[in-house]
């Protein structure tokens, strides 16, 4: 077991996509970087549908080959089932160059972490950051090594907090603010042999997933809730996102979590049908609640937040991993700028906070139905982030607002901004009904 150093230039807390991106880029810039992760990789987590925008970050960190070789399932687009209407999108229509993936997060995150190690980041797993010392005279991180129980301290010049839902700095300084509009619960599990939906509303059997590309399904439940269905290499991830009353009903269902989850999924239209011949993997069900919160602060002298530690909203538009890699990139840039020019660090910290706040506002507003926005100041700044997206990303975002009612706050804003490239788009199709592949083949033959 290697010794954890007592000094480093930068300590990154957390080895998920945000942390490994920040650490990787800083190491490439010549800094001595120590990354602490409380888990041992590979480790499971959710957020398994990733939009093609992610490739620009994968390329920046040098993980392109490794991610391609992993052979993740490529999705062709999305199937949104909302208030009884089925709509589909095809990602190739938007001009993205890289494929869109369904990823097993244990594998995906570990790849990014190992690439970061190859770039020179010193990674220590099963080490929990307990306390951050932010005074410039004393800056550092106190940790506990879970394997030995030993406590230790690393002195450093800058700290990137990418600790995810753990939110080390926000919790320590007391500024973690739950998002009042989004008090959700999520429960997810993994199924063997699930059927899935492809383009053209085709219901395909599990075995075809490499031949006929799956779509990511998001199907609404009641007013706020929804279920995802994400086909992966060896199993299918299915997850519920439930609003407070729905969550209460779910919890009151008695029996064990696995059974309640399975029953709830099978009862739902369409996804329930896809699961007819599928089996829930025992012990695979997990739950998390109140995972949405807002950033009242994003950075300060010698520190900044990245990924879920900064904020999280709702996974409905597959933006979590992208937001993590973007904020990880911004964190690396900011740390580098502050360390090279300490006299200008207030300015660079301000730049970071502005850009990330814009990005988070967009993330948030894309998941909020009309009439449910307690934080109206987000509207104006969200558009600034949208302006900086590529044409493909802007058009996809606009189309996403048409697929569910979750983006009702965002749709009118996008339509009104002359600095955006798309005020309308028809790159989605309504599908009258889903058709099993078999019957389509029979009809053709």
């Amino acid at each position, binding site marked *: 077991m290697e010794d954890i150093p007592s000094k480093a230039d930068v300590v990154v807390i957390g080895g998920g996509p945000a942390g490994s991106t920040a650490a990787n880029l800083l190491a490439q810039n010549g800094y001595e970087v120590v990354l602490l992760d409380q888990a041992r990789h590979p480790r499971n987590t959710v957020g398994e549908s990733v939009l093609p925008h992610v490739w*620009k970050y994968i390329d920046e960190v040098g993980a392109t080959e490794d991610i391609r070789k992993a052979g993740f399932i490529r999705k062709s687009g999305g199937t949104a089932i909302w208030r009884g209407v089925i709509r589909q999108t095809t990602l190739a229509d938007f001009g993205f160059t890289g494929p869109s993936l369904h990823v097993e997060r244990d594998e995906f995150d570990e790849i990014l972490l190992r690439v970061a190690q190859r770039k020179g980041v010193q990674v220590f797993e099963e080490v929990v950051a307990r306390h951050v010392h932010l005074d410039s005279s004393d800056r550092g991180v106190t940790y506990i090594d879970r394997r030995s129980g030993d406590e230790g301290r690393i002195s450093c010049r800058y700290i990137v907090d990418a600790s995810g839902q753990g939110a080390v700095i926000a919790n320590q300084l007391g500024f973690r603010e739950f998002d009042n509009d989004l008090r959700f619960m999520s429960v997810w599990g993994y199924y063997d042999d699930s059927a899935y939906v492809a383009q053209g509303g085709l219901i395909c059997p599990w075995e075809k997933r490499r031949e006929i590309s799956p779509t990511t399904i998001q199907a609404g439940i009641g007013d706020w809730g929804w279920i995802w269905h994400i086909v992966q290499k060896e199993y299918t991830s299915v997850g519920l996102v439930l609003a407070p009353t729905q969550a209460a009903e779910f919890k009151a269902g008695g029996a064990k979590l696995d059974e309640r989850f399975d029953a709830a999924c099978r009862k739902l239209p369409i996804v329930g049908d896809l699961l007819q011949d599928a089996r829930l993997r025992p012990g695979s069900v997990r739950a998390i609640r109140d995972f949405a919160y807002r950033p009242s602060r994003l950075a300060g002298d010698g520190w900044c937040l990245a990924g879920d530690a900064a904020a999280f909203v709702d996974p409905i538009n597959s933006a979590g991993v992208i937001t993590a890699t973007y904020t990880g990139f911004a964190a690396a840039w900011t740390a580098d*700028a502050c360390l090279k020019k300490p006299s*200008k660090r207030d300015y660079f910290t301000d730049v970071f906070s502005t850009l990330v706040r814009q990005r988070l506002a967009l993330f948030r507003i894309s998941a909020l139905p009309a009439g449910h926005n307690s934080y109206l100041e987000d509207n104006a700044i969200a558009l600034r982030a949208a302006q*900086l997206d590529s044409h493909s990303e802007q058009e996809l975002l606009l189309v996403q607002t048409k697929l569910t009612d979750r983006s009702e706050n965002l749709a009118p804003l996008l339509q009104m901004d002359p*600095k955006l490239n798309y005020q309308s788009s028809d790159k989605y199709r309504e599908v009258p009904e889903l058709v099993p592949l078999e019957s389509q083949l029979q009809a053709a033959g």
Partner: protein
Amino acid sequence: METAQTDVKGTIKDYILREFLPGESPDSLDDTTPLITGGVLDSIATVKLIAFLEERYGVQIEPHEMNADYLNFLPDIASLVESRQAQS
């Protein structure tokens, strides 16, 4: 005055061509090319440009200026840099 303006604009143009439009002809980027709305500068590139302007000219683009209202066209970026230089 004229020369100074061209220098700043020319330097910024060269930087953008080099960093974000490698291999493209200099003619593809002129005073009317929409940099942000035209997709030349995305979220990563904008951060890099801001860093470049600070490094090269000691000028701080303010957070409220980091968007298409201020940074969409070369002449706008150049004037912003020059007026900020005049202040310091």
